[in-house]
């Protein structure tokens, strides 16, 4: 089966993972063989802000992997990685009104894209083309693919593993270095 059709496979049942406040539909598990294996190393947590009722105890994970490519590693012409990601949650109560909209953004928030909304099982699968990125889920009136940024409260957010590649200035062997010499304030 081509991978493109896998992406379009309904993600129902992905979150039959827990009790509590989850609202997963029963009996709709997707066959395991259809799910790519996200390298654990590049998974990251989706952390609730507690600003939206019913979501404070949510536990979320973003699985990250490369979409199919002939080359084994998916990059764009500028060399940025192209990632597929999948969100899955436990104990996430979906809103009675409005929608949980998924956004991807660069870590300095200078580029923001609305990429979709959580399914009625609280799942999502999408793509991102930045080496460092945030995934943000907000509570909006509705999903608007043209929206330039969110208006509603942030429900959960997570940062790509690459966000841990922080500056060495002031750390370890560079502890005695003058950070200002390297462009830092």
């Amino acid at each position, binding site marked *: *089966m*081509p*991978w493109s059709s*896998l992406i379009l496979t309904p993600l129902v049942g992905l979150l039959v993972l827990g009790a509590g406040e989850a609202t997963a539909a029963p009996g709709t598990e997707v066959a395991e*063989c259809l*799910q*790519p*294996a*996200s*390298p*654990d*190393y*590049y998974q990251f947590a989706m952390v609730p802000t507690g600003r939206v009722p019913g979501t404070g105890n949510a536990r979320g994970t973003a699985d990250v*992997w*490369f979409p*199919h*490519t*002939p*080359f*084994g*590693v998916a*990059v*764009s*012409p*500028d*060399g*940025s*990685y192209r990632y597929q990601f999948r969100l899955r949650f436990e104990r996430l109560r979906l809103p009675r009104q409005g929608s949980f909209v998924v956004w991807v953004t660069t870590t300095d928030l200078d580029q923001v894209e609305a990429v979709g909304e959580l399914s009625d099982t609280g799942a999502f699968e999408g793509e991102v083309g930045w*080496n*460092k990125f945030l995934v943000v889920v907000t509570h909006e009136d509705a999903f608007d693919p043209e929206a330039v940024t969110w208006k509603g409260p942030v429900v959960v957010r997570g940062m790509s*593993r*690459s*966000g*841990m*590649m*922080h*500056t*060495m*200035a002031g*750390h*370890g*062997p*560079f*502890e*005695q*270095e*003058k950070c200002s*010499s*390297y*462009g830092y304030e």
Partner: protein
Amino acid sequence: MNDFEAVPRGQGGSRHVGPGRRLTASRGFTLGGALLVWLTAGTADAAGQQMDHAAHRMPAADGAWRMPPMDPNMPMLPGLEMALPPVAPFLAAAGIDIATLPEARPSEVVEMAGGDTLDVDVSIVRRTLNGHEMAMYGYNGQYPGPLIQAPQGSTVVVRVTNSIESPTTVHWHGVRLDNAFDGVPGLTQAPIEVGETFVYDVKVPDAGMFWYHPHVREDVQQDLGLYGNLLVTPPDPEYFGPAHREEVLVLDDILMDEAGAIPWGEEAPTHALMGRFGTVMLVNGETDHGLDVRPGEVVRFYMTNVANTRTFNVTFGEARVKLVGSDVGRYERETWVESVVIAPAERYVVDVQFPEEGPVVIANSIQAVNHFRGEFYPHVDTLAVVTVGGDPAGASMAAGYDDLRENSAVVEELNPLRAHANREPDYTLETTVRVNGLPLPIVVSMEIDTLYVPPMEWNDAMPMMNWLSTGDQVTWILREADTGRENGDIAWTFDEGDLVKIRVFNDPDSFHPMNHPIHVHGQRFVVLARDGMDNDNLVWKDTAIVPVGSTMDILVEMSNPGDWMLHCHIAEHLHAGMMFDFTVRPAA
């Protein structure tokens, strides 16, 4: 058989490094010395250490160690200012007047029929790169070596004479030839000593673009220019789609500074952590490769990556790029791609149409890593320039360019292999690394750095640390998951005709994980799946990249009896142990 080193390893201490020069232990690196320097580094003038690394450069005399060039925005790692790799520096033809060496010339095409013999002399040549005259190596004095063309199914004879200063062999990469001619010293043949000759019977059962290179200290000999292509032509003239012409793009890089090539490690490779990234890009051995084409022309590029460690992301400007083939023949289906990611030793065949007049830059376009700032940044190197102009190309060859062909014969051959996709692998290999005796500042920095490891290393983001790590301090490991056996202790035996599923997992939790291009000698394989995703477009391969954290399932067709190697094709990783051999018993 675990020792493929043809050059004896030294024992440290005072070493002769060339006429009239000695590198003494006092200038070599010691762990205690590094620690002392590091602990006192806080008293140094930090501002003086940054941006200007010239103060730390070693003398530029030929044959002495010089620190490799660093990004001026990257600070020197405190404690390593005077550190040197604990091996002797090596440059080709040390002590010989370069002016007396024959000047190398561009590659020539050698069309061979079955039974023909080609004499190849492996010799020292004079090359000029970036304005520097250097002693390098060449096959028949050419860069790259002769482009050998032979018809599929034939056997050609190549008589190789060693006229360089150390033993060598020739490995016919990707070719399913008879085991005795695979070119692996200590496994399939004795090294060709200086002045000796070895005759290779090169049987070429598969169509496609292959290449040849030494299997003795590739990190040195291959880097010095010993590589060439072998194009095996299929009997079907429409094997690939129509194209106006065919061109070869041999991608390479070489590590140089303003004084010339940075020396290589004599007893063991330097740059054992990440491999030796070059600072000067080479296409077909040239720094300024160019090509003139006509508007509308469809050019078939046979791309080969012969670099020690660099994976390229090759772009062709705005031109459309059609991927038609890889290591060992055609894909099931042709596809459009935006760029070509090509790891060391891989080959890709692309058809590119250049519709508009004007220059088109073939570039390596990456997001490099600045470890100090913890940032990615765009980096583009021009590899070649295609100048589009003149009368439009004939339309007939371009007529089918918009179409993507499905190769029914390939589908018929490869599709049945998908039945193996959903079964458990026969063997699982994990990649990891062990280090011993690396300078403490390097260890500390790398421990911090491994909070995040990118899937691929596109650039040398830690050139000083990388340079100081040698094959004596770093052991790259292929570990069999079931038995825990590592590298040369792995013992696999198969029967001719076996289809063996091997899973390779690039463990991201090792000390310094890195992408690895895995190469299987003498056989061909398909990549069945990556990270659990089935491959929907199969092609025969002999080398495939495994990014950090990724899992790759390959199905190897054990079709060729003999003793063969499986190894990482980053030259420095190979010589840091990342290899083993396996046996294929002939069918009864």
